[in-house]
């Protein structure tokens, strides 16, 4: 029987709440900063090519389904919110809330994936491929690498949901949750930029 126990992680909770706390292991932050640098450079490269051939990029953008982009933004923002709530619940040893939040975040990730696959199918069906033009090369490469991150993130969310249900909330476990959560928030913030640059920018 799973019990809510608000006391057994008191020490880890207060450690996690203090100032100057690195959320998660240092290793995950090497990955996060590396990803941010690479994606940052790709955003700037995209903008440079866009500037060089603005009419082509604007015309090509008309073929994107902005509603799909908006729905996926809502999925991403909501999943990040659920994950942040779960980490807080784990620090308070609130098992059901922690596990429920991770599961809801995972569902949002699945929703994002379904929309993404539908979108790719529409594009391929319309004969729009990675080599159609520069805009769609960026579109497939940027959203493709991002989608790979979503898939990895969903596996991590699955592990976190399981781990939050079994065993006690040790400081070590909460550290793992913070690492996984930080990675998922990275996936969220990269999508925020992709949605603006690829879908919305007029």
């Amino acid at each position, binding site marked *: 029987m799973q019990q809510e126990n608000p006391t057994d992680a008191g020490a880890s909770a207060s450690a996690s709440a203090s100032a*100057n706390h690195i959320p998660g292991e240092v290793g995950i932050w090497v990955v996060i900063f590396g990803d941010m640098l690479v994606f940052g450079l790709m955003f700037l490269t995209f903008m440079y090519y*866009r500037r060089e051939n603005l009419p082509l990029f604007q015309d090509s953008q008309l073929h994107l389904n902005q509603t799909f982009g908006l729905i996926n933004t809502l999925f991403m923002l909501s999943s990040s919110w659920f994950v942040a709530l779960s980490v*807080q*619940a784990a620090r308070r040893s609130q098992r059901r809330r922690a596990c429920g939040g991770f599961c809801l975040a995972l569902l949002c990730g699945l929703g994002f994936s379904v929309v993404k696959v539908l979108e790719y199918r529409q594009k391929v069906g319309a004969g729009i491929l990675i080599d159609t033009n520069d805009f769609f090369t960026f579109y497939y490469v940027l959203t493709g690498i991002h989608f790979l991150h979503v898939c990895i993130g969903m596996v991590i969310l699955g592990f976190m949901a399981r781990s939050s249900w079994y065993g006690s909330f040790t400081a070590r476990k909460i550290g793992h949750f913070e690492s996984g959560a930080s990675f998922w928030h990275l996936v969220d913030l990269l999508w925020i930029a992709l949605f*603006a640059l690829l879908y919305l920018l*007029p």
Partner: protein
Amino acid sequence: MVSPKRLTLVWLLLLGATALSWAFGHGAMFVTPLNAGTAIVLIAFFKIRVVILEFMEIRHAPALMRIACEAWVLGICAGVVVLSR
């Protein structure tokens, strides 16, 4: 510890900002697409900064981590705005 209520307010703020940038992307308020584009980029990087500070808890992280994150947001945002105009 960050309260669930604060996290929910942050989520609502992010949804509101998304709605605003959607409106700017569809001709609301700004006459020229150029200005609308700049507004969309600024809103996007504002949202990113909020996610980093609030959801990723960088607000409570060591100064060096916060500076690195803020520098990334500022640098990439400035670069994108300049290249978009």
